[in-house]
């Protein structure tokens, strides 16, 4: 463990100290991108084998869509023991990765259990549906979209909708969070769950609305498309390339870029002053408050920022599929995302990424494939029970078992975050007293924590910020 005046640590901290404001954030992202070669060299010096292996893996990941769709697809049946993910599967893997990265900000960084995350996904999807479809047929407004002018409905280019969906989701996150974040952890979980159930119900039922209030008069108005949802939604479009459901690899790479940017933002958030405040609240809210952290405001930002990722994911889903309906947004989807980050490693962004990719692969590709195999096998041995068994409809049996087993045996996930692991294995103070074994464990835990705190103190010094200054507002989404 190096001292906090180690020049390397201070330098690293200076590099990671965030700038505030929207421009500062863009600069941070640019910094992160331009800093990649340097970071790679440093990582190579520390562990060349691991670095090369990870680089090759990343390269394969980036090349995978092209390989899978154009090179390997004809051979896949004979060459691979497992099925390949097609372009739609890949896009959904990446959409869920964006959500998992965002929910990890809420659950992993700030320690707030959000069981209604799907609401923000729905809000993002409906933002895209309202602003890029013929739904408002009485209006005609086209902004930088390839739809011909004068076409009925609002048609705004996807590139404007994407940030707008994030802002809409963040706004609703703040609106829900403002009164509820004072609640205790399990009550917050229930309130968010309720919100996650209400939002799709509202989208489903706001059809045939009769309403009159002053100048606003609605007669049998179709506000949300009702149970049928809204379609068609304009696909994203750049220089004539369409990123819709029939776009081949193009939408996969679009989703990849969104995931990459999400990763960078989440990583910056984690190492920002705000990120350290989140960790403090997660570990001990009272102590954090004593140290001058504005807990309600800090939690609100985690909630709103986390929600904005789901907004991105939702607008991508709607634009990619060209349709959205309220039935798409179920409680089970919220839980699926929770399972992703728990499986991957709570608090670890890369864990969230891997968890999301793996779980959607299992859910959408592997189980269906196993089902086909089983049906074939069942028919070949004339067993009706096996031939009609569909493992894909029991996906949540498997996921439920995974959830219980993970909590029991490895709560820190497959790719653990060191600080989070220490917290999860730490015995509560009153239980630790009087048991030497437990005390030993607690000591190990607090050593890991001390190390993490030392790192944080180091970056605090590097950023030369005043302790009593209010937490910075990373994107101005504060109250």
């Amino acid at each position, binding site marked *: 463990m190096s001292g906090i005046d180690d020049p390397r640590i201070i330098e690293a901290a200076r590099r990671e100290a965030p700038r505030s404001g929207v421009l500062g954030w863009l600069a941070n992202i640019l910094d992160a991108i331009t800093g990649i070669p340097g970071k790679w060299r440093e990582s190579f010096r520390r562990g060349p084998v691991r670095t090369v292996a990870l680089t090759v893996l990343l390269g394969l990941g980036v090349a995978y869509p092209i390989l899978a769709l154009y090179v390997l697809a004809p051979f896949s049946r004979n060459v691979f023991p497992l099925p390949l993910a097609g372009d739609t599967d890949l896009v959904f893997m990446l959409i869920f990765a964006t959500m998992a990265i965002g929910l990890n900000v809420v659950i992993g960084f700030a*320690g707030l*259990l959000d*069981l209604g995350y799907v609401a923000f996904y729905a809000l993002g999807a409906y933002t895209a549906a309202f602003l890029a479809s013929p739904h408002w047929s009485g209006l005609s407004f086209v902004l930088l979209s390839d739809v011909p002018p004068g076409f009925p409905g609002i048609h705004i280019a996807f590139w404007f909708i994407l940030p707008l969906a994030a802002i809409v989701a963040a706004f609703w996150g703040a609106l829900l969070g403002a*009164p*509820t974040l004072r*609640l*205790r*952890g*399990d*009550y917050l*979980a*229930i*309130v968010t*769950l*309720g*919100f996650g*159930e*209400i939002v799709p*119900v*509202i989208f*489903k*039922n706001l059809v045939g609305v009769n309403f009159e209030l002053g100048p606003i008069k609605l007669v049998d108005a179709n506000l949300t498309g009702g149970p049928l949802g809204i379609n068609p939604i304009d696909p994203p479009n750049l220089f004539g390339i369409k990123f819709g459901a029939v776009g081949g690899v193009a939408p996969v790479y679009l989703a990849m870029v969104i995931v990459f940017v999400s990763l960078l933002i989440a990583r910056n958030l984690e190492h920002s002053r705000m990120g350290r405040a989140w960790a403090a609240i997660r570990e001990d809210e009272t102590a954090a408050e004593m140290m001058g952290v504005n807990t309600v405001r800090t939690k609100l930002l985690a909630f709103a920022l986390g929600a904005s990722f789901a907004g991105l994911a939702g607008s991508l889903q709607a634009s990619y599929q060209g349709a959205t309906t309220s039935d798409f947004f179920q*409680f*089970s989807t919220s*839980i699926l995302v*929770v*399972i992703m980050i*728990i499986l991957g490693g709570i608090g670890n962004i890369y864990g969230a990424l891997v968890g999301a990719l793996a779980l959607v692969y299992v859910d959408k590709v592997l189980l269906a494939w196993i089902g086909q195999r089983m049906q074939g096998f069942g028919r070949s041995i004339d067993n009706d029970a096996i031939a009609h068994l569909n493992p894909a*409809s*029991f996906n*949540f*049996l498997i*996921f*439920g*078992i*995974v*959830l*219980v087993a993970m*909590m*029991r045996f490895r*709560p820190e996930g497959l790719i653990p975050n060191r600080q989070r692991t220490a*917290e*999860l294995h730490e*015995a*509560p103070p*009153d*239980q630790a007293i009087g048991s030497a074994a437990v005390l030993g464990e607690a000591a190990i835990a607090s050593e890991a924590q001390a190390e993490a705190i030392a790192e944080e103190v180091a970056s605090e010094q590097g950023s030369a910020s005043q302790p009593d200054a209010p937490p910075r507002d990373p994107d101005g989404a504060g109250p």
Partner: protein
Amino acid sequence: MEQLIQTAIIGLSNGLIYALVALGYTLVYGIIELINFAHGSVFMLGSMLALTLFLALGIHGSMPVGVILLAILLVLLVTMTVTATLNVAIERVAYRPLRHAPKLAPLISAIGMDFVLQNVGLLWKGPANQSIENIVPPTNVLTTVLGLQTGLEISYKQLMVAAVTIPLLVALTWFVTRTRQGKAMRATAQDPDTSGLMGINVNRTIAITFLIGGALAGAAGTVQILFNNTTVWNLGFRFGLNAFTSAVLGGIGNLPGAVLGGLILGMINAYSDRYLAAQWTNAIVFAVLIGILVFRPTGLLGQQLAERA
């Protein structure tokens, strides 16, 4: 006016079933501060088991009253035993190992358990609604038996709900407030560590709490199948959230509060179905839940620390 009262009667009979399930939530929350997400699915499995038993016994409404009553009693006992055992097993597998883990760990484990149980129901009975013929007749007691001239309707079914539920509530109150084991439950709820030092077997007390909660869920499942004639694998999710809302409404950890909350929630459901639109009912229930948690987290009766069990 008659319609208003009639809706209240329907609401109250559903509310009694909510109350039975809500007690399971409130008992467990009172003692280990865990929202037992899996509880709704225990109730669902109870209703499926009761349905299976009634069909296996070949009970139908035209049989003599004595046979029907005996069958109901038998099914009730078997279902309650099975769900109570199941609930204790769930506690043993999914919650006890996490007793000293951070608070969200058992909650997440409970959600996982809920999905497992739902899928057990799905594997067992398939995705379709499972229905049964009327066993207790829906005959109006007021006009046919009492011979009153009224538009109101109280059926045998509704009386059956009260006849099963109210004795159970009385028995539970007696158990918690008058017995030695009830005292141990109240002590553990207040302070598990000190209770342990005073010679109370904390793990056993918690297991007994789950046993009682499970038994009440089984009773509620049986009543549900007799009253509403239908069950489905995801019934527990909606029903469980309604029941949890009842528990919170009355003040979680508070036994009379859970019953009061259940009755109020049953009425809210009935009035919303009748005077608003059924498709908004769930949203209204959740809005009530959020409103209470935000503005009065202790619920209507508050958390009576000395009495919570």
